[in-house]
């Protein structure tokens, strides 16, 4: 680590002053026995394993199914803090949908000089096949999982706008289930807003985006790449909780101008497909012809108004890390308001001056691939060895436009339960927002990811991170 940075702890602030949202929790915690809690934590793990809440690890033959560690100390957010986050996310989601519509139509933002054309032209996430498509309600991203980090009492930053296929919502729900199961007394003592309505809200929101061809009650289905996908549990969980079918590409065909699923009673048309298959694999007729996961012709039916695809193909252009740096402008351009949520200052390495600055300060910065995700391919300068920094410098200089850099944020911490009692660990937060023509519906809660290793800033589950239940307190 660089010179001692002071981290804000969400339970104890900058010192040992207990913060208000944690007062009731702390009362309860002080009367509990740590060993007993530790054994409850083991119980939770058994429960997760039994329920099959696992994620598949690519390239790992043995023990290919792993649990994401769960820590039972909740992340608690006050109603007031949440209010501001909610307004900020609502604004951002509306702006992103307006941006996507514009980018796939007249590109006014480019014509207005607020976004350089190259940002789109040289962007792999721009999907030409989406040009001219206006989905129902002009909603392109229906489910958004905005990654937020906190650096101080009133200092939230958006780290990423996950607008293509945000995952993790099943953990938000299962973590709460587990907490309710293990500590019912806590919930009778503390007024925590519920998250359990998410599946119903999701189905309602998706149904509100039914295509023109829909006749009567919209038929919703979830498209999964299959049981070997890392997030398969979440796909089946969501389909199950929504009460809709979980389909794979080979269950679907184009029948009577619709995308239809093969049932025991014949083919039945689908109105809204919540797809968890990446763009490139979605339609072998229009995209990658080798894809075995997709539905040939679905883009054609989509363009003809026969189905709604959620999230729309091509939404990746809006959560690309280089576009991210323009988000304050994007929000302002489409909403006419200043962005409520802050962006992390970002250097685009494609720009010569920025690249110079980044190269001079690699030891202090976080450098990420523009299209990367899951914590892969990034450099956390302060945590990297000299050798790692130099190796990364070579990669960066070979393809500067593939990278952006950000200052190392003093990510807030929330205590986790260790053998020795509470110990602070860095966290981030991913709330889930649903967009439909009726508006943006933000679920009061989210996925709190926690870096379980002391001092680590990488919270990704693929890199050994864990999760916590996230409590939003009632007013």
């Amino acid at each position: 680590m660089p010179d001692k940075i002071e981290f804000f702890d969400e339970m104890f602030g900058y010192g040992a002053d207990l913060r208000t949202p944690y007062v009731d929790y702390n009362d309860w915690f002080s009367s509990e026995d740590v060993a007993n809690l530790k054994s409850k934590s083991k119980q939770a793990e058994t429960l997760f394993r039994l329920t099959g809440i696992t994620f598949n690890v690519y390239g790992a033959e043995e023990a290919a199914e792993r649990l994401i560690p769960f820590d039972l100390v909740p992340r608690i957010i006050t109603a007031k803090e949440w209010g501001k986050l909610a307004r900020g996310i609502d604004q951002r989601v509306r702006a992103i949908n307006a941006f996507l519509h514009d980018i796939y139509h007249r590109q006014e933002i480019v014509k207005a000089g607020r976004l350089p054309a190259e940002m789109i032209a040289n962007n792999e996430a721009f999907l030409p096949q989406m040009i001219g498509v206006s989905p129902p309600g002009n909603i392109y991203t229906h489910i958004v999982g905005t990654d937020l980090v906190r650096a101080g009492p009133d200092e939230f930053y958006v780290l990423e706008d996950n607008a293509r296929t945000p995952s993790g919502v099943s953990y938000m729900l299962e973590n709460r289930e587990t907490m309710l199961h293990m500590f019912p007394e806590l919930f009778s003592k503390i007024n925590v807003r519920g998250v359990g309505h998410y599946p119903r809200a999701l189905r309602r929101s998706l149904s509100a985006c039914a295509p023109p061809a829909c006749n009567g009650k919209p038929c919703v289905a979830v498209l999964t790449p299959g049981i070997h996908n890392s997030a398969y549990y979440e796909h089946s969980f969501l389909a199950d909780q929504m009460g809709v079918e979980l389909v794979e590409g080979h269950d679907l065909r184009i029948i009577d101008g619709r995308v239809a699923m093969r049932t025991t009673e014949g083919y039945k048309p689908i109105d809204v497909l919540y797809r968890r298959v990446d763009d490139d694999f979605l339609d072998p007729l229009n995209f990658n012809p080798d894809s075995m996961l997709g539905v040939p012709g679905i883009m054609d039916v989509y363009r003809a108004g026969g189905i709604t695809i959620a999230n729309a193909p091509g939404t990746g252009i809006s959560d690309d890390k280089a576009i991210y740096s323009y988000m304050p402008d994007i929000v302002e351009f489409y909403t006419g308001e200043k962005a409520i949520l802050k962006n992390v200052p970002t250097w685009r390495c494609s720009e010569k001056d920025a690249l110079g600055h980044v190269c001079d300060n690699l030891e202090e910065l976080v450098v990420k691939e523009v299209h990367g995700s899951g914590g892969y391919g990034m450099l956390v300068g302060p945590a990297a060895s000299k050798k790692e920094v130099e190796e990364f410098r070579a990669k960066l200089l070979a393809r500067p436009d593939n990278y952006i850099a950000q200052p190392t944020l003093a990510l807030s911490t929330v205590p986790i339960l260790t053998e020795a009692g509470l110990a602070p660990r860095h966290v981030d937060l991913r709330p889930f927002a649903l967009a439909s023509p009726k508006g943006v519906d933000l679920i009061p809660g989210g996925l709190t990811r926690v870096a379980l290793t002391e001092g680590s800033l990488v919270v990704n589950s693929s890199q050994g991170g864990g999760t916590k239940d996230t409590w939003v307190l009632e007013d």
Partner: protein
Amino acid sequence: MRLKISHTTTYSYDAPVAYALQQLRLRPKSRPGQTVLRWDIDVEGGTKQALFEDEHANSVDLVSFLPQTTQVTIHSHGEVDVEDQKGIVGPQKSCVPLWLYQRPTPQTVAGEKVKKLLGTLEKTDDRLAQLHALSAHILASLPYSTEQTNVTLSAEDALGSGHGVCQDHAHVFLAAARSMDIPARYVSGYLMLQDSVDQTASHAWAEAHIDGLGWVGFDISNGISPDARYVRVATGLDYYSAAPIRGMRQGSGTEDLEVQIQVQQQ
């Protein structure tokens, strides 16, 4: 000039096809200088599933094969009035940003051969003249010949083969124009021939975007800009995105293709 067009494509298979889809880019649209009086597409052995506009604003029919079919016939026919517009098509109307037409596709990469061809091209600041010169230069370097197989070659491979058909000419033109930062696109359509009504393939040419004029057509194979004998049907970034018929098929049988085209003045 009023043109009557009939385009019949017959696919035959040596084994029943379990499932197949085809995108037909076979419907000309009315536009300044081109009025479609009537147009129909009849499909035997298949079912029309959807009619939509693709990103280039082409009218596309999606067709699925009937279960276990061994033969599918697509008959596309109609009448079109065409005026001679000296090859000028006009300003970009669809939402496709012009820079997309400057991006090479796998078929239109300007490799060494295209660069070499450009090296021997006489340069001028007049864009229109430059493109006409390019068109003539391509035809000279790659004489027209139908002896080719009907495999779609990239611009580089076409130049390597020493001769080409209209789609090769168009691909080389697109690769060259794009490497000069000129937006250029592929056009698939029909051309009335003076000496014969019957044809065995549809035609293809290219269009380039010139500030002030908009899109201008170049029929490289015939060394002219399209006139009243040309019917524009579909445009795209290369052969693949504008092809009259493109599809996917499940099954291992082999495919036989027969094309009959008639273009005649009414």
